[in-house]
């Protein structure tokens, strides 16, 4: 069975209300959260899952407090990984919110994998999410759009890598299951912002469909052992092993 190396990469920090990450829990508390993306390498492939934010000043002006140190730009991170933008074969966007596709424009040789429903939601967003989609980050102004592969449902990208729909936070949200030596790691995007979303079964509060969001958490529980949530402070930059364990705290499945 093919395995890959997964590296967590940090694209900056946001300051948000905790209640926006955990519905009806800790509202009114400010929290500093990292913006995660991930690099997946193996079997001759270089893959990025999400591309972070394009400009912290734009984020500060339009969304929330935001910082990005010099070594957290995607260019610098790629350098540190020993990658160059032109080497990236595949970019997967979990969804098209501004903090997950900000640097799509850097990748001229990549195929981009997005759920079709997310692409459509991105160019024609629900009113309450219009401010967090910025179409110029992912449309023809950023990317040769013939490089998009618009996926419809669960999809085996390569042996050992599965894209799975996890809608609820965004209309066409997907998560990425990657087989690693330790087990299956779910790069969840914002299907869970923090580990506690899945261990305590608490929805994120940025939502398009609550029932689907609960189903997404359940599907991730069934299918994966570890997770890199979209914004969990428990992940360290450049971690490659020991990602967050999903099971053992919420409901312990019977162990063989």
């Amino acid at each position, binding site marked *: 069975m093919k395995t890959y190396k997964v590296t967590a990469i940090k694209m900056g920090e946001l300051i948000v209300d905790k209640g926006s990450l955990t519905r009806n829990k800790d509202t009114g508390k400010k929290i500093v959260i990292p913006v995660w993306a991930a690099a997946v390498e193996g079997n001759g492939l270089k893959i990025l899952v999400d591309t972070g934010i394009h400009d912290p000043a734009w984020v500060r002006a339009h969304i929330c407090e935001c910082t990005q140190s010099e070594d957290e730009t995607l260019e610098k991170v790629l350098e540190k990984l020993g990658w160059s933008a032109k080497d990236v074969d595949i970019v997967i966007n979990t969804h098209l919110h501004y903090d997950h596709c900000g640097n799509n424009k850097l990748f001229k040789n990549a195929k981009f994998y997005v759920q079709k429903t997310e692409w459509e939601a991105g160019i024609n967003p629900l009113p309450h999410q219009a401010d967090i989609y910025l179409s110029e980050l992912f449309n023809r102004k950023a990317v040769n759009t013939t490089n998009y592969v618009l996926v419809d449902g669960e999809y085996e990208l390569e042996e050992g890598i599965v894209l799975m729909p996890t809608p609820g936070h965004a209309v066409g949200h997907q998560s990425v299951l990657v087989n690693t030596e330790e087990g299956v790691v779910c790069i969840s995007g914002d299907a869970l912002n923090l580990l506690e979303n899945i261990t305590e079964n608490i929805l994120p509060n940025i939502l398009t469909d609550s029932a689907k969001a609960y189903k997404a958490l359940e599907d991730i529980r*069934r299918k994966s052992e570890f997770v890199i949530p979209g914004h969990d402070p428990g992940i360290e930059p450049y971690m490659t092993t020991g990602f967050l364990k999903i099971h053992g705290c919420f409901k312990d499945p019977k162990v063989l």
Partner: protein
Amino acid sequence: MSVYKITALRIGTLYADKHPLTMGRGFGEPYTTPIWSTAIEGNGIKALVDTGIHDVEWVRQTVGAEYRVTQEEDETMQGALAKIGWTTDDVQIVINTHLHYDHAGCNYLFKNAIFYAQRIEWEYSYNAIENQKLYYAPFLYDWSAVRYTSWKMLDGECEVRPGIVCIPAPGHTPGSQAVLVSTEEGVVCIGGDAINLPENINENVLPNIIYNCEAGFHTLEMIRNRADRLMGGHDGAIQKYQTSGFPRIN
């Protein structure tokens, strides 16, 4: 044309009534019900259809309260494979006809295999009708048993290899599938519980553990038209390690 050798592996026995296997028949009639797994070998492939039960004690406690369950030494999965010269690591392909506990029990043993099931069976297993909930134990097939990246979740018919075809066989459960295997004796259908016994298919009798009767009859008709012989999921007339002479479909 690729042909394969198939071998019946017995992974234990339930001592139950016949009526769960044949709707409207066999009430109160004791039936020694083998739990079959089927080995497929040939053309460089070692494949297994269904993986039996994982633990006879678990079966007794969980679902077997009202009947006896036994497992002889060569009826554990490892014991049965050893008899045909296989180890669990040799198995490249595992096909689950469905995800009931007696068909997916030993999935966790096969670390090198690619697994095939119908996607709707996986989904249904978490939302089964009341009288089937007991038969699904997700820890036998979820992350704790099989890495999800090793699954091929099928949306319909699939040629696994030339001469090995999974076909949807709904009825017993919504996501049941049967496996057609090309052999020297013709096409053998490994029926899972879509067809427990030759009687089901030759006399057009549904299994009595049934989700949808109409789909069940359609499945029987389809298999009558596609297969020459039957390896039923619980046929008591089949012998341990039988490799030929499987019952004919009339």
